[in-house]
Structures are given as C-alpha cells and as structure tokens.
C-alpha cells in the first residue's frame, strides 16, 4: 500500500519495460496474447507467450492424482441421489394406483361412448335403418318401427311409364319402388287417404295433381297409395283435384301433409303411418307389400 492509500495492484509498473529494452506493449497486443498461440505474437512478447503456453500445458500425473477421491465423492452423491429416487419410487409403489394412468378417465370415456352408441342406435332404430333382427328387437323393446324384409321381397326396379299410357292393371302400371316417386308422394297419399281430395285453392292441389300423374290416373290413386302407405284405400276418394269432395281447404292436419317431421316419440312410432313413411325403406317395403297384396 502506498502512502496515498492506493493499492499496489493499481499503481503503475515500477519498472518500465523500456528500461530493459522491451518496446512499449499496446493493449491490442496484450489482449491478443491472452488468446493466441505463441507463434502468432511478435518477438518481444514471445517470452511472455511461452509462459502463458506453459500455464496451458497438458496436465501432469500429479495434477490427476486426486481423481479417486473425487470419484468417491461422486459415487456417494449419486448413491444418495439413487437412494432418494428409490425411496420415491417405493413410496409411489406403496400408493394404490391404477394399472394405467390413462384409465383414470375410463369411466367417463365409457359413459360418453355408451351415450353416443345409444343415441346413434336410437336414431337408427327409429328410422328403421338397423339390420332386421336388431330392428325387430328395437321394435319390441323401444317401440321402434318394425323390421322389414327387404332382402326377401326386393321390389323390381321402378319403371317409368309415359303419363299418357293408361293401364288397366294399376299395380303393374304404377308401383312405387324404393326410389320411386311414390316414396316422395307417401305424405300426399296419407293425406289423400285421410281426408280425400283438397279443394282447388289448397296449396296441396299441385301435389295431388302430381300424385295423379304419377299413379297413372285418378282411378289408380287409391291402389297406388295403398301400395305406398300399406293402408287400405280411403273408403270414398273423390275423382280428383278440382272436384270438391266436401273437404275444406287446409283440412289436412300437420303431419298428414307428407312432411315426415322429426322422429316421433317412441310411444307414437308404429301407431300410425307417419313414422313409417319417415324413411324411404319403410315406405318402399310397404309399397312392395301393397304390390304383392294387389297382385
């Protein structure tokens, strides 16, 4: 420490390098010396570079003699860490746990899957899309529409017949098939069978006109609709639209105008034609029945 209280470290060098024949050393040279190999420095700095190189020299055996002690410490530390891990593992093993962590959610997943299957199955049952045995079971259990026997009574392909041709044998002339126009007209047929012909101003007049065309004539409508709906023909159908049959316009109740609407409640399905005509298969099978019974 100097008299002015300045540490010796911070005092200027007491001996000037120039005093010993050393040229002034720039900061850049010195900084490079700390990072470079001795070969890259200028001649005046080579002795210093040699010293620094000796400081970086490869270790001697004595500098590696303490390895065993360090490794013993390392083994102790890792052994303690291993014991901690084992204690933790045994603690976890003692706790009751499920076979798989994911199964914690299994009841919820199973319940959700069950509900989905139930919903899809219910919709399929009420729309009559299930296989015959299952549909029959659904019919008994939840009052779904009865199973049909499409495979045993496959209808012939729908034949398009010219509207101008009137055939004496109406079932042969017009028999609705699975994709026949009769399928589309089942609602109109129900309306016809329930209420007869509407008046001229009825919004359904065009639909009835179309029914007559499809059936091949007004005379064939009762038989055609019987085939479509599976019901007997209306006892007293009137000849056709344009003829007042005594039924007031708008007499057709909702649900009887051919709109199938949403799936009916279980208690209502099977009790009337609406549920049966709500899908194409049901009406097709009924159409086949009608054809067979007529033939």
């Amino acid at each position, binding site marked *: 420490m100097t008299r002015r209280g300045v540490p010796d470290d911070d005092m200027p060098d007491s001996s000037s390098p120039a005093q010993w*024949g050393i040229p002034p050393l720039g900061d850049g040279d010195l900084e490079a010396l700390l990072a470079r190999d001795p070969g890259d420095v200028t001649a005046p700095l080579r002795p210093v570079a040699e010293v620094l190189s000796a400081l970086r020299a490869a270790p*001697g055996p004595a500098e590696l003699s303490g390895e065993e002690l360090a490794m013993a410490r390392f083994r102790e530390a890792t052994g303690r860490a291993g014991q901690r891990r084992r204690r933790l593992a045994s603690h976890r093993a003692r706790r009751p746990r499920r076979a798989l962590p994911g199964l914690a959610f299994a009841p919820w997943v199973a319940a959700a899957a069950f509900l989905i299957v139930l919903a899809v199955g219910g919709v399929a049952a009420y729309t009559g899309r299930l296989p015959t045995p299952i549909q029959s079971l659904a019919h008994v259990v939840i009052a779904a529409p009865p199973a049909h026997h499409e495979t045993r009574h496959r209808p012939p392909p729908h034949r398009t017949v010219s509207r101008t041709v009137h055939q004496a044998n109406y079932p042969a002339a017009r028999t609705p098939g699975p994709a026949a126009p009769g399928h589309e007209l089942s609602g109109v047929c129900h309306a016809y069978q329930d209420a007869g012909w509407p008046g001229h101003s009825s919004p359904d007049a065009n639909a009835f006109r179309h029914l007559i065309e499809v059936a091949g004539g007004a005379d064939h409508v009762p038989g055609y609709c019987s085939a479509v709906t599976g019901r007997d023909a209306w006892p007293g159908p009137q000849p056709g639209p344009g003829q007042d049959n005594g039924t007031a316009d708008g007499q057709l109740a909702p649900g009887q105008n051919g709109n199938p609407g949403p799936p009916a409640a279980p208690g209502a399905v099977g009790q009337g034609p609406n549920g049966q005509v709500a899908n194409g298969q049901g009406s097709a099978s009924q159409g086949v029945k009608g054809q067979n019974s007529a033939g």
Partner: protein
Amino acid sequence: VLGEDFAATLAAARGGSESAFSVLWRDGNPALLRYLRVIAPDAAEDAAAETWVQVVRGLERFRGDEAAWRAWLFTTARRRVLDQARLRRRHPAEPLDEIQAAEVPSSPDAERLAMENLATEEAIALVSRLPRQQAEVILLRVVAGLDTEAVADLLGRSPGAVRVAAHRGLRRLATLLAEAGVTL
C-alpha cells in the same frame, strides 16, 4: 476444454455416469490446481478437493454451457479459498516451527510434479510473483479460459478494471522475464 462433447458429457455425468464425470474432472482439475497454487499456495490441494465436493453436490442443478461450467467451477474454488482464509483468521494455526518434524506434511506429489512438469511449475512460480489481482486475472483468462466479462463477474469488478489488470500483469511478466535475461 471439451468443446462439442461437453453437453453430452455433462448430461451423462448428471445421470450418474462415473466415466463422464471423470472426463469433466480430468479436464477441469489441472487448471483448477494451477489457479489455486497461485491464489492459495498453502491449501491448493484441499481447496481443489473441497471444490469438487461442492460441484458434485450441485451437479444435478447446474444448467449452462462449458463457459458457464468453468465459471461455476472457478467461482466455487475461489469461494472455498475465501472461506478457508476467513476460518484461518478466526482460528490462527500454530506456528510451523512448533510442529514436530515428523508431523510436517510431506508431499510426494509436489516433488513429482516439479520433475514432470517443470515448465508449468516455473510459469506458475513466475506468475505468483505478480500482484495478487493481476496474477488472478491472468490465470482466469489463460488457465480457466474465461473471457473478460466472466472474469469481471467472478471477481466483482468491472470489465475495464479486469482488462487493465491483465495488461499490467502481462507487462510486468515481460519485465520480469527481461530482468531474468529470458529471450526467445
């Protein structure tokens, strides 16, 4: 310096691999000893051993690259030296001349070291003649391989002060070598 292998070696050592820890130790211990022989010549071996004990304990928690690893290693060593110095001040050791001759610790390793690594020993002896701060900065830059900022963090000084100390130390080394008539 392990370079690209450092990360994998460290990860393996943290996982309990003795061979990986041996690689870390063999890479770090010689530099650590050279640094400690300058700043704590009387207790370099003990300080190095205690440093590794601390490192082993904190190995699982360490995160960083090789530069951070070396900074941590030398910071730990320096703290051990400061702790030992504080302990000695509180509990002064007996004067050496009161110890029986048979109790004087012999150090065969030191003898072998002097024979096998003479150039390094001479270099350490020469740097030890520098003021403590200059010698420490030079060793941390050259032996530990730390940059100026890392040394400044370790010593709690500004990078400028570290740079000045390093340059002054090198100039003084040049002077010492010139005084000794060493030319290359």
